[in-house]
């Protein structure tokens, strides 16, 4: 500051000296002092102009910027209303964008915290639509031996085993890895050592295990005594020794997961699983050799993959072989971690659509700010004209306008960043709710900050440039004479139309997601979830099957006998939980076996879920492992396999066991609500063949009220029944169903929220422009009224203008929506992206809102007293 003042003072003194010498010179040559001054001033020209040119010589944009900022701060402080509205709307736009970007960053962009993550690749089979699929142990071994462009490869899989440590049994999230997993990733231990290839062999003795930093913290309080500790892995009945801890920033190789314990994979697979090319359970990571690119690795992979398929095809049944050989595989980037089971895919589409929505919201905020700035510029038009007239450069003035929007964008950006933190953690909790194994971080990193900075800057330029250019381009003369030009009106109206168009798109989007959610809730499920409580029950892995059945049966009996319980049952797979059990089923007399949905259920299953039986009977107490094998099929199965004939008494074979059909149940949704009803076959829980599942889902229907009321009683009952039973994730079934529609609910909620926000902003815009117009046309309106126009006629006059804007907004917005909503096609249900009804509804909503906003100015216009109006000005 002092420096600037000195420079200014120096410049002033220097020029004043010159001026005075000129005056003296003239006086010396005999001129009148007054005349001498006049002559000197004439010769000197514009002193300020010279000063400006001198200031220009010194690079002074920084000083100018400081000056402009101070000026902006002064003017903004004087209009707190404008400041609040514009900063809030920007903060909302920027905050929403930052929040969604934070999630996109966490789900899709963040690299694994390992050595040069960009060299990591994911080696996978592919689903027909190109999503990654797990690989088998033989394929892993084959690729490890033969791939040249990838130097090291590692496999890993997830498991959820029970361990016994210090005498207590507990469930842990485990990551099973091949021996070179950590060397491929290139990470260093936080304590002890990590697993090495030597650990991943089948040998006697106590194998090594590695724990995560968070488990170390939670279970051992970061104590070094954790190293060397042993635990028994129930399922293999082996004792493992903890040898090290992974670094704190490492959350496993998978997106959204955080394993507690890492074990060598070969310990965990049995011989069949190691040999079977159809047992696909592993994810495979590799590191590209120096000089090799991902395309090269992929090309090599295609050759090796075909060779591998040919090699194992011999073992595949003849009729399945063509389909088997059509399978695809690829090398994908692994820099962001492994993505199997499509976690990233699940949310990527939703997040990208949300990103589009919030981008529109930001655009809307910019249009809003732009029209506010335009109105301010209009009220400053005289000042600007004066400044232009005394020689201010247009570029200089434009810079001042941009400084104002820069200050607003900076404030909006900071407020947006705060808002985003709150907003993204709310969103994260919406996403992870009900999934206790899902880990997602909402912490902004440098990418998020850079993104926020960039969009704030973009918003500043977008919002500030048009009004700024418009203002400084103004014609000097009319500006000075204080008559207004129509150009400002045109830009203002264009901005209102833009706001309405964007609102239209957002309202259409909100309506589509709302309809989708409503249709999903109203679709015929074939079962009633209200009044049903469900929990998962895990039995100790130490129990033999007979002991297990006995415990489950006792529990079922006790549950049914509880006061307030109407019926209780259990199922291997809970319907509409996202999971499905498929099995090959051969219907008696049809020869071919076909894949059908499959489930194993306890007695009174259909009664508990209120699914009517169309014929035959439910499973009962007598359908035990010892009794004759029986099955129930659903309508679709019956119609497909037996047509109009009765399926009762017919035989079906699955996994070499023949069942007699004893009942037909009404169709019910299985995996999720979107899916069509599948051909489904049910067998008694107790008649499951082969290895017994250690988990099953209990269903308890209460007589009345909230089923969760019984939760404490049931917990106690389970504890008392058997100490070897673990009750996990107890929920009201309807809440679970709500959770299965999480993405849809997020889309509908956020869609509605942003749609409403857009409507409010558009209404404010319409209100502002119309109020301005009315105040400008007050003379004209007075004249019209004096000449006999009715109040209704005046209201119609104002509203007609709004109608034109609205029509333009609806048409432009509708056209934009038609092209944009196609992107959401996959997320919709029961409604097409171009559904005319939805567009009409959106137009009506927008219309009602806009007319409501225009009503106040219109009414004000109609209340104008002609006498007052005509004397106005």
């Amino acid at each position: 500051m002092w420096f600037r003042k000195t420079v200014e003072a120096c410049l002033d003194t220097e020029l004043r000296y010159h001026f005075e010498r000129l005056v003296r010179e003239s006086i010396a040559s005999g001129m009148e002092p007054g005349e001498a001054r006049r002559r000197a001033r004439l010769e000197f020209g514009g002193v300020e102009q010279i000063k400006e040119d001198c200031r220009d010589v010194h690079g002074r944009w920084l000083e100018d910027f400081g000056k402009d900022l101070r000026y902006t701060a002064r003017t903004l402080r004087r209009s707190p209303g404008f400041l609040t509205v514009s900063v809030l709307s920007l903060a909302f736009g920027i905050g929403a964008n930052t929040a969604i970007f934070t999630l996109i960053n966490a789900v899709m962009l963040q690299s694994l915290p390992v050595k040069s993550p960009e060299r990591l690749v994911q080696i996978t089979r592919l689903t027909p639509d190109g999503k990654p699929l797990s690989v088998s142990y033989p394929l892993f071994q084959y690729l490890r031996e033969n791939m040249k462009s990838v130097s090291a490869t590692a496999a890993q899989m997830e498991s959820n085993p029970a361990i016994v440590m210090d005498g207590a049994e507990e469930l842990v999230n485990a990551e099973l890895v091949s021996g070179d997993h950590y060397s491929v990733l290139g990470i260093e231990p936080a304590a002890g050592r990590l697993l090495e290839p030597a650990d991943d062999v089948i040998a006697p003795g106590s194998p090594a295990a590695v724990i995560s930093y968070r488990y170390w913290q939670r279970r051992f309080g970061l104590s070094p005594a954790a190293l060397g500790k042993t635990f028994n892995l129930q399922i293999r009945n082996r004792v493992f020794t903890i040898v090290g801890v992974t670094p704190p920033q490492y959350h496993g190789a998978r997106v959204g997961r955080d394993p507690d314990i890492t074990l060598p994979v070969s310990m965990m697979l049995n011989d069949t699983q190691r040999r079977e090319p159809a047992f696909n359970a592993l994810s495979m990571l590799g590191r590209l050799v120096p000089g090799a690119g991902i395309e090269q690795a992929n090309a090599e992979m295609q050759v090796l993959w075909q060779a591998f398929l040919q090699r194992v095809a011999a073992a595949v049944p003849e009729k399945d072989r063509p389909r088997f050989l059509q399978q695809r595989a690829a090398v994908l980037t692994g820099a962001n971690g492994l993505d199997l089971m499509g976690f990233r895919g699940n949310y990527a589409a939703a997040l990208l659509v949300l990103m589009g929505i919030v981008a529109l919201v930001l655009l809307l905020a910019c249009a809003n700010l732009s029209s506010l700035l335009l109105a301010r510029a209009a009220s400053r038009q005289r000042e600007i004209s004066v400044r232009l007239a005394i020689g201010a450069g247009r570029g200089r003035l434009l810079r001042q306008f941009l400084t104002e929007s820069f200050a607003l964008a900076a404030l909006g950006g900071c407020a947006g960043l705060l808002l985003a933190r709150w907003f993204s953690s709310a969103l994260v909790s919406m996403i992870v709710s009900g999934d206790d194994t899902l880990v997602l971080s909402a912490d902004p990193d440098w990418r998020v900050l850079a993104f926020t900075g960039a969009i704030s800057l973009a918003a500043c330029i977008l919002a500030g440039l048009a009004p700024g250019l418009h203002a400084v381009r103004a014609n000097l003369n009319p500006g000075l004479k204080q008559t207004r030009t129509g150009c400002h009106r045109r830009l203002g109206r264009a901005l209102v139309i833009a706001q309405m168009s964007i609102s239209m798109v957002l309202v259409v989007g909100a309506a589509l997601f709302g309809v989708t959610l409503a249709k999903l809730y109203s679709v015929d499920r074939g079962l009633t979830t209200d009044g049903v409580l469900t929990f998962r029950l895990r039995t100790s892995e130490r129990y033999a099957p007979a002991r297990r059945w006995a415990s489950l049966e006792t529990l079922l009996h006790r549950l049914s006998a509880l006061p307030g319980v109407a019926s209780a049952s259990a199922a291997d797979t809970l319907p509409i939980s996202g999971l499905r059990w498929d099995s090959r089923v051969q219907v008696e007399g049809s020869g071919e076996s076909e894949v059908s949905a499959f489930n194993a259920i306890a007695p009174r299953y259909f009664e508990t879920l209120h699914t009517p039986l169309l014929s035959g009977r439910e499973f009962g107490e007598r359908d035990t492992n010892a009794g004759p094998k029986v099955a129930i099929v659903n309508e679709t199965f019956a119609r497909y396999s037996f047509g109009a004939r009765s399926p009762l008494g017919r035989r079906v074979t699955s996994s070499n066991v023949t069942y007699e059909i004893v009942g037909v149940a009404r169709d019910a949704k299985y995996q999720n609500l979107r899916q069509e009803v599948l051909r489904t076959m049910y067998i008694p829980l107790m008649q499951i063949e082969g290895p017994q599942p250690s988990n099953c889902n209990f269903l308890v229907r209460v007589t009345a009220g909230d089923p969760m009321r019984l939760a404490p009683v049931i917990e106690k009952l389970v504890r008392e029944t058997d100490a070897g039973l673990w009750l996990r994730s107890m929920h009201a079934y309807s809440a679970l169903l709500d959770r299965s529609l999480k993405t849809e609910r997020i889309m509908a909620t956020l869609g509605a929220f942003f749609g409403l926000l857009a409507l409010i902003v558009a209404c404010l815009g319409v209100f502002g422009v119309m109020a301005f117009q009315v105040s400008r046309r007050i003379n004209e309106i007075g004249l019209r009224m004096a000449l006999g126009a009715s109040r209704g006629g005046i209201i119609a006059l104002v509203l007609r203008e709004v109608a034109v804007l609205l029509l333009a907004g609806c048409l432009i917005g509708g056209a934009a929506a038609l092209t944009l909503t196609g992107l959401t096609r996959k997320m919709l249900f029961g409604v097409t992206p171009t559904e005319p009804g939805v567009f009409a509804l959106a137009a009506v909503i927008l219309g009602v809102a806009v007319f409501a906003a225009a009503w106040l100015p219109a009414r004000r216009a109609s209340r104008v007293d002609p006498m007052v109006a005509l004397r106005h000005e």
Partner: protein
Amino acid sequence: MDAQKSDLLQGTLDMLILKIVALGPIHGYGIAQRIRQISKEVLRVQQGSLYPALHRLEKRRWLKAEWGEAETGREAKFYVVTREGRKQLEAEEANWDRLSEAVAMILRTAE
């Protein structure tokens, strides 16, 4: 008339200023006077060109400024040529000689 003169000055003003200042510390008014006197009133420098040029040369570190007492007893800003300024002046003078010789040559030959 005036416009023509300043056109001529456009590229060479910096050189003329350097040359004048090289004769000894001098203020802006003095420079304007000297140029007028030495050129026998042919060249007249407008203040609007002079001061931005002075500030430009100062910024390029060919001139440096000192505050001192002027003949009238008032405080004035005196300009002094720096070492780089002298070098620049030599270079420009040499360049100017070559240029004017070349122009003169063409004019003579074309006669």
